[in-house]
């Protein structure tokens, strides 16, 4: 919104320059965001809050200005011919038949006040230079003296008005009513609008002639031929105007102000001011004012306690300062109580935003100047409480970063199709999604992660490791919304292979299977490293995973038997559908489950005093025998001195028959009490060999 400081100076005798004025207005919340032009053509670009429609005009800004500098504010007093004095008819019936122009308000709740004047025998012509110039300065196009008068008054005092060609109003009367469904009205912008019974209209005896508070009708507008004019200035229900404006996608300067609340007491003033301006340029004979008031909008007085101002604002403003500030803004204050302990304050009609004591306190603070209040720090003795899982989350984040995963944040929406593909949970669907691809809240972190991996691969970043910790959104079985926390890891094959140290390779056979096995192990290690931050005495793995993972190259991790994560290579078909240029690996960790575990506590064990002995066993097994089985078989021996049992090398092909593989296993034996003897080592080795043979293994010699 634009404001001309020159125009403001008409109402207040200012000594400060425009730049200073802009700064001082901004400091009281009437923000002048920019200044353009110079001299009399200077214009402020204003940013005025929606709660302050009273300041969306020059007189309103002048009022704030007068309060800032403690200067007198000059009144606006239209000079009209004496015959046309205000003769108000405050009928509560909503109808005023005995007045110069018949006006019927059928919707008194939505139109509590309708003021009008008839002006006969005027000449429609271009506006005087001063009016035209001012409107142009505000980017308003001058049209004709009558139309410009309404526009000028809108920018001067903020009250929208309208002028009709009186002779085009059929039946010689005005009715304020709801439109009939399907009724049509061509508005001033030339658009024919189909009305509904929710629209409020100004109508003549036959037809709607204006969309109430939004825009007038085309067919009754002022033209060069117009001689007789009806000036309308009404007060409309803000909610009704807002809905109509939205319904017709028609936002006008008038609707902007009515939506936020116009000044109830300015209908006569604005009507008179429009009449004055038309008379000045076009002449004519002015009729009496018609003022139909169905309901008054008086606000109850508000009590302002000096002590309350200090309790909320701090500092030591005195009663005289409060009095001065509020008085300047148009509030009437009556000091009451002992030593003026409080004021009874009457709220001016243009301040619809002020209803309570706290609203007055804000006015006092605002005009006193926020920056003038001294900065203080409150005393406090409470303890600082972290979120219950803050330490766990921080630990996971640190570990993921240390493992080379970059933290990512993705959008929270996914498509219906992805929701179905990646999770079996019931989705929360959006009423007004941004797009089809973002129509439900994510039930899985996987689609977002895959999108990010694909984004990188499509930009030739091949070594990609990402992690994200966030919520998924589900409807529980009982229909309650839940927001479980998840962590998701994503990595490309390049990254997964790259992080495997040369010495860590187990499977030395050639071919894709060995590559896949090693890549999987590398990724699994990352998942294990994250889980290992938590107390977990029983971590196991099985193959029960979601369908988006490769069934042969993925696993589910269980903590004490409860699923906590699933991870592995993406199913080739999912990868193909997303045109992923590489195999990628994904892990979804259920943080709700994981956080039930405590963080692993560091515990000291004395370092061994006696040397450890390593024994290697080379075996050939059928492919169906897993390492886990060997581990269990050896574990069942319950050898107290067995410290560790690990695979060292795996090989398929060559001399090893199909469906079989060779594996080199290493047992580490150690005692805390003594050096082990050869005979006992031999005895245990024999037991290990026997256990492995029990699984069908054949020892190589």
């Amino acid at each position, binding site marked *: 919104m634009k404001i001309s400081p020159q125009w403001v100076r008409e109402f207040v005798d200012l000594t400060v320059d425009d730049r200073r004025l802009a700064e001082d207005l901004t*400091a*009281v*919340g009437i*923000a002048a965001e920019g200044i353009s032009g110079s001299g009399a053509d200077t214009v402020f670009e204003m940013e005025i*809050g*929606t*709660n302050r429609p009273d300041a969306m005009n020059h007189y309103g800004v002048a009022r704030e200005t007068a309060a800032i500098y403690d200067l007198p504010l000059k009144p606006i007093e239209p000079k009209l011919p004496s015959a046309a004095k205000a003769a108000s008819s405050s009928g509560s019936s909503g109808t005023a038949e005995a007045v110069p122009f018949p006006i019927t308000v059928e919707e008194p709740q939505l139109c509590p006040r309708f003021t009008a004047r008839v002006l006969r025998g005027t000449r429609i012509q271009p506006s005087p230079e001063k009016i035209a110039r001012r409107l142009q300065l505000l980017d308003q196009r001058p049209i004709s003296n009558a139309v410009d008068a309404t526009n000028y008054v809108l920018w001067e005092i903020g009250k929208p008005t309208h002028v009709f060609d009186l002779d085009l109003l059929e039946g010689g009367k005005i009715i304020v009513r709801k439109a009939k469904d399907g009724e049509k009205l061509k508005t001033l912008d030339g658009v024919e609008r189909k009305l509904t019974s929710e629209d409020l209209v100004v109508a003549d005896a036959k037809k709607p002639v204006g969309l109430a508070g939004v825009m007038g009708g085309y067919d009754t507008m002022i033209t060069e031929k117009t001689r007789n004019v009806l000036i309308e200035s009404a007060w409309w229900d803000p909610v009704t105007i*807002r809905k109509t404006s939205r319904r017709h996608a028609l936002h006008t300067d008038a609707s902007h102000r009515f939506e936020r609340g116009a000044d109830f007491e300015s209908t006569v003033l604005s009507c008179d001011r429009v009449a004055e301006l038309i008379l000045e340029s076009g002449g004519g004979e002015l009729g009496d004012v018609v003022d139909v008031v169905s309901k008054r909008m008086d606000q109850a007085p508000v009590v302002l306690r000096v002590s309350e101002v200090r309790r*909320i604002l*701090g*500092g030591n403003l005195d009663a005289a300062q409060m009095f001065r500030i509020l008085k300047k803004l148009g509030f009437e204050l009556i000091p009451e109580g002992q030593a003026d302990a409080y004021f009874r304050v009457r709220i001016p009609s243009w301040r619809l935003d002020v209803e309570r004591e*706290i609203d007055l306190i*804000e006015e006092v*603070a*605002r005009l006193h100047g*926020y920056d003038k*209040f*001294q*900065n*203080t*720090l*409150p005393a*406090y003795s*409470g303890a*600082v*409480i*972290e*979120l219950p899982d803050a330490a766990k989350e921080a630990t996971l*984040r640190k570990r993921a*970063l*240390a*493992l*080379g995963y*970059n*933290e*990512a*944040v993705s959008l*929270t*929406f996914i498509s219906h199709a992805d929701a179905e593909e990646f999770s079996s949970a019931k989705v*929360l669907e959006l*009423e*007004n*999604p*941004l797009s089809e691809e973002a129509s439900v*809240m994510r039930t899985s972190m996987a689609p977002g992660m895959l*999108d*990010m*991996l694909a*984004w*990188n691969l499509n930009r030739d*970043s091949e070594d*990609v*490791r*990402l*992690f*994200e910790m966030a*919520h998924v*959104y589900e409807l529980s079985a009982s229909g309650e*919304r839940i*927001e479980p926390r998840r962590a998701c890891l994503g990595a490309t094959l390049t990254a997964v292979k790259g992080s495997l140290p040369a010495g860590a390779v187990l499977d030395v056979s050639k071919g894709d299977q060995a590559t896949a096995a090693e890549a999987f192990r590398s990724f699994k290690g990352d998942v294990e490293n994250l889980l290992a931050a938590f107390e977990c005495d029983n971590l196991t793995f099985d193959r029960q995973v979601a369908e988006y993972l490769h069934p042969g190259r993925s696993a589910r991790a269980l903590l004490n038997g409860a699923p906590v994560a699933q991870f592995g290579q993406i199913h080739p078909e999912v990868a193909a559908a997303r045109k992923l240029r590489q195999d990628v690996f994904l892990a979804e960790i259920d943080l709700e489950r994981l956080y039930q575990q405590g963080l692993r506590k560091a515990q000291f064990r004395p370092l061994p005093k006696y040397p450890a002995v390593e024994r290697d066993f080379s075996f050939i097994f059928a492919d169906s025998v897993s390492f886990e089985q060997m581990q269990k078989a050896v574990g069942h021996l319950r050898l107290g001195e067995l410290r560790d049992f690990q695979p060292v090398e795996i090989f398929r092909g060559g001399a090893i028959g199909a469906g079989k593989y060779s594996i080199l296993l290493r047992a580490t034996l150690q005692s805390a009490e003594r050096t082990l003897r050869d005979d006992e080592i031999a005895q245990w080795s024999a037991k290990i060999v026997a256990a492995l043979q029990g699984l069908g293994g054949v020892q190589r010699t």
Partner: protein
Amino acid sequence: MAYTVPKLTDYSTAALDRATRDLLSALEEESAAVRTEPEYEALRIRWRARKDGIVTQVNDLWLKTAPRQAKRNVGQKVNEVILSRVDAVLQERHDHVKNLGILEKARAAGLDAELDAARCAVELAESIDITLPGVRRPIGAEHPIIRTSNEIVSVFQKLGYSVADGPIVETDYYNFEALNFPPNHPARDTQDTLFIANQQSKPQRERLLLRTHTSPVQIRTMEKMRPPIRIVIPGQVHRNDPPDASHSPMFHQIEGLAVDTNITFGDLKGTLDHAMKELFGSSVKTSFRPSFFPFTEPSAELYVTCFVCGGSGKRGTEPCRPCKQTGWMEVLGCGMVDPNVFEFVKDNGYDPKKVSGFAFGMGVDRLALLKYGVDDLQLFFQGDVRFLQQFS
């Protein structure tokens, strides 16, 4: 296993190259292990002894037996490559061994000057190219938004604030009603807020939506905890804004709330002034301008002196873009908790006649954008490692 000169059956250039490479790498390896004169002498004899030294063997086994047409090629290889390289390596090693010897003797005799010279020579011979790039194991980068959020939270934790959180899918009650939004407030429009589908049968206050700010957690926390409280609430919020360089339908906020029997507007100002200095440096200035929010009154916007241009509005001779040349940047909205908000939790000790409080809320994404000079908000949400690694 020690190197032995193989017999050649294939005299092609490739085979010859391979044999030469093996021989020279064996030489390098053996020579590197030599540290004393006797060891050097053994090495020299093994490689250069006229009778049966490795070079002699090469002559015998490769050159003499070579077919006529390969002779020239083999001869050239033996003389120009093997002979010269073997001699060079032996010479170099002998120098080094000599220096080692001097070093040893000087050390034993306590001859400082000679010791230094010998030490220098030895160290020089052992020096490597330290300008070769180091092998960097990848370290992940914390997301700039999370990092900024954590920084802000920790500033307030030091001031005694606890951390609170709440659901992202919220009810109208917590997101709007209890925060004093009037029933017809435009923020409730589908144009501004994302709603969960199929809620029409519920009363308005129970309808689900994606919270548009972290403020609902103020109410949730006050329902659970009696005053005094001091909390910060970091979290994700959503609005119906299509993604562009400065908008995202999902973004991050940090909310703060302090309620006690004696909290004033001056406390709000002092607390935020302190926090801004912690965040942006002690030279930063703050300014509070009147604003409007349904859940605070008086309400303010907090401006800080632009941390790009330091408040001058200029960067060198260029206008400062981030602050639009004003020297000030708006960083957050704040205000004194509106008494109407307290009314909703009055039964838990929040009688607006007895307690007062302040609240503030800031957009983390925008702060991160300004802090790191990022020009497109979307970069935060694409997971592009080229972007993320910049924050490592």
